């Protein structure tokens, strides 16, 4: 009953979305306000409808309706309540419902804004949002229906179908297979939603870009309207990536946080083009340049968002055959191709009206450096995209499967990331339009001297690796320049206004949140870079099998194996939990409990590390194997990850910076409009 109701609301939502898109196109072309208003109401209606669908799904998941194929594949009786709710996004079908629900929420929120000056955009924004939504609803209704039931035919064959096949009986099951153990983690509550929020919110600037192209209003108005949406999208996508890395570090038990897995890269790709977009829109706003390029970037970002959504849960990149067998694979690629071609066609039709208003007068101007930044981001995106799809191409043409693993990405992207760090330092010192090498040199020498101190400190600390020294030097330079920028701004304001220095800094940052939010983001990147350099270049590891009371050494740490407990849990796991003590230079630091959970349902082991975390390093120990009745004892693997906490702290500062930049400023137009309104409004008696 509930499943039928949920499916029914999905069908109605699909029809409403189709109607809304049609009404918006008609209203937009004929400039008919009633039609546009009707389309807007249709857009707004999709959200409550999809909310009902999602609630039906959650109800079925929580109450354990295992006759539904999706429910039985992602939940089981032993799972706690919060995981049953979050298993909505634990598989492809539910993820698509969740994605659609978020998409509808964001698009509805956009249609509720005040449209006064931008009314011509409205119908086309609705068209893009509803066409995207309708596509996802097609996927759900016809290919990945979460309400499909399991049926048993008289011949004993189990079939999946929404409605009863002739002669088949509903397959009632007492329990489900349950969620993949890797996903049974509190991170499941927040990481996928953040990533999806990032994905769907990038649809909004894309919708406005298309609206600008269709209406021919090709000034930077679409960018100004969507500035905050873009930052919000960037915020969520960044947060999703950082949380995902942390989850991997805590759960996956391989001592790292980023494995250059295709699924990781799928989320990273729109982030790369989105980050290039966040920077390059500033050039259009300040200098009226790069109008075409910004369009290209947002079109690419949208295409990569759809690509990423599809890739995250489908697994089709594992093989050409998997791709061919997947019903939704070709459809997704068809949709991406179609929207890409239509968007580029629209862009070409407005090519002439998107000419730059200004000239590039110096190679050292901020816009020139921003362009270089874009080149580097795009280069990393090309490396990543190519690395992800090449195995498919190889298999298609040569019939041989290959692996494109971390060494490829590390080697190809490391110099590009170093270039980005350098630019991040230099660009804030340049001015829009007219910087020269001389002015830039004059601004940079003090921070440069400071950065040399960083190299000296690194040498004293024993760093001899050239790449690491270069990395730390770049971090020092960027940090010095960024802090110097804070200092210069505050000092200038302090001298001009007689405000105290902290107050001057506070007010200056408050007046230009975007600028100082951006600098805070840069500081976050520096901290993250320190963590990445430390953990990537100086990580050490060892593995050994030791008896109880035996020790294992790594760098100046010693691990002593004390005991091992083994028990079954009510939620269907067998837990083997070791107790080890850790000492550093002979001094006892504490006990750790690495464990290995074996899930009976899925016959899958999970390795959960024991970690001792400090600013200096992480001592990360895994229980690889154990022999409870032999004198061999247990096998442990230890990772020593220097500076890794700087990565997480940097991630926090990064997010804080985006929040500062995205925080609403007092809009001068609103103030002046308010003044005007007050001045001309009739006096109420």
């Amino acid at each position, binding site marked *: 009953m509930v499943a039928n109701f949920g499916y029914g609301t999905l069908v109605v939502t699909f029809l409403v979305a189709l109607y809304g898109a049609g009404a918006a196109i008609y209203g937009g072309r004929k400039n008919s306000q009633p039609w546009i208003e009707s389309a807007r109401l249709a857009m707004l209606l999709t959200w409550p409808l999809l909310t009902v669908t999602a609630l039906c799904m959650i109800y079925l998941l929580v109450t354990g309706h295992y006759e539904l194929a999706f429910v039985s594949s992602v939940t089981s009786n032993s799972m706690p309540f919060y995981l049953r709710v979050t298993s909505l996004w634990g598989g492809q079908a539910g993820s698509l419902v969740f994605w659609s629900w978020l998409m509808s929420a964001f698009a509805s929120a956009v249609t509720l804004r005040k449209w006064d000056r931008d009314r011509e955009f409205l119908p086309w924004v609705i068209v893009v949002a509803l066409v995207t939504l309708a596509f996802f609803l097609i996927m759900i209704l016809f290919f990945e229906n979460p309400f499909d039931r399991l049926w048993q035919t008289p011949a004993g064959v189990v079939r999946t179908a929404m409605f009863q096949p002739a002669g088949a009986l509903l397959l009632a099951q007492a329990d489900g297979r349950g969620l993949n153990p890797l996903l049974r983690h509190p991170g499941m509550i927040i990481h996928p939603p953040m990533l999806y929020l990032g994905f769907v919110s990038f649809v909004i600037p894309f919708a406005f870009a298309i609206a600008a192209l269709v209406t021919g209003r090709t000034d930077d108005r679409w960018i100004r309207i969507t500035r905050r949406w873009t930052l919000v999208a960037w915020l969520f996508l960044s947060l999703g990536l950082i949380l995902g890395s942390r*989850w991997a570090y805590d759960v996956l038990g391989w*001592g790292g946080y980023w494995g250059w*897995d295709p*699924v990781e890269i799928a989320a990273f790709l729109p982030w790369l083009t989105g980050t290039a977009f966040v920077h390059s829109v500033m050039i259009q706003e300040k200098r009226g340049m790069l109008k075409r390029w910004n369009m290209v970037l947002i079109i690419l970002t949208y295409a990569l968002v759809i690509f990423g959504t599809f890739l995250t849960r489908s*697994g089709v990149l594992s093989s050409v055959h998997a791709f061919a067998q997947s019903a939704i694979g070709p459809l997704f690629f068809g949709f991406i191709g179609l929207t890409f071609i239509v968007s580029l066609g629209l862009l070409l039709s407005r090519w002439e009206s998107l000419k730059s208003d200004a000239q*590039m007068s110096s190679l050292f101007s901020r816009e020139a450096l921003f362009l270089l930044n874009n080149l580097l981001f795009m280069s990393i995106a090309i490396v990543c995209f190519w690395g992800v799809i090449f195995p498919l191409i*190889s298999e298609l043409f040569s019939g041989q499967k290959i692996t494109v*693993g971390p060494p490829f990405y590390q080697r190809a992207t490391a110099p590009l990331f170093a270039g980005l760090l350098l630019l991040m330092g230099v660009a804030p010192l340049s001015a829009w339009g007219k910087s020269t090498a001389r002015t830039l040199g004059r601004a940079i020498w003090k921070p440069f001297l400071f950065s040399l101190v960083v190299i000296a400190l690194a040498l004293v600390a024993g760093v001899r690796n050239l790449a690491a020294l270069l990395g730390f030097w770049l971090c020092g330079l960027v940090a010095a320049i960024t802090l110097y920028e804070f200092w210069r701004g505050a000092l200038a304001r302090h001298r001009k206004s007689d405000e105290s220095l902290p107050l001057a800094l506070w007010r200056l940052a408050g007046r230009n949140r975007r600028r100082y939010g951006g600098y805070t983001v840069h500081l976050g990147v520096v901290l993250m870079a320190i963590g990445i350099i430390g953990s990537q270049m100086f990580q050490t590891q060892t593995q050994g099998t030791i008896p109880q009371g035996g020790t294992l050494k790594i760098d100046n740490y010693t691990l002593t194996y004390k005991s091992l407990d083994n028990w079954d849990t009510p939620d269907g796991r067998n837990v083997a939990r070791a107790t080890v003590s850790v000492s550093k230079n002979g001094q006892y630091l504490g006990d750790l409990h690495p464990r290995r959970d074996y899930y009976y349902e899925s016959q899958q082991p999970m390795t959960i590390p024991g970690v001792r975390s400090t600013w200096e390093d992480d001592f990360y120990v895994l229980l690889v194997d154990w022999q409870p009745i032999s004198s061999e004892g247990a096998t442990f693997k230890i990772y020593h990850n220097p500076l890794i906490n700087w990565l997480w702290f940097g991630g926090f500062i990064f997010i804080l910076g985006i929040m500062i930049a995205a925080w609403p400023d007092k809009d001068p137009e609103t103030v002046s409009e308010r003044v005007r309104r007050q001045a001309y409004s009739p006096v109420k008696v």
Partner: protein
Amino acid sequence: MRVHLNSRGRLFLSNKIWLVALLALAAVLSVTIAAVAQDSTQRPVTDDQVNAVARGLYCPVCENIPLDVCPTQACAQWRELIRLKLAQGWTDGQIKQYFVDQYGDRVLATPPARGLNWLVYIIPPVAILAGMYILYRAFQAWRKPVIATPPVASAQGEPTAIDNQYIDRIEEELKKR
């Protein structure tokens, strides 16, 4: 962030399990045969030595998980095979070649640079160089011919004037927002 699932359900999963089982069987047989054939010159091999080789290998089933950290039974068997080969004095390269001969190039972390595989290494630098060229041409096209030398700031050296310039620049940027 290796958290990802396959949604194609049981059929695919059971295929995978079969493949794992077959691989495990193949590995066990190889280990047994190799153990019979081994000579008396064996030397003890540490886990770290095994992992150093395994780090650069990927089993065909556990996609994108390096062999040294993969928790499956089949991968554990592969590691034991590596241990055995190392004990027999095989080098890193020989062991990798052994697995390539058995299972194809996909067991390597990066494809060997030959044939079609060259494309994986060639395309990104070519694309990046093309991007640089386009950017260079764009710079050339955008640069205005210099008509007059911009006036040198007369207040150079006076801190307050520079401060004013700086704060004015920020204010100007603020107005443009």
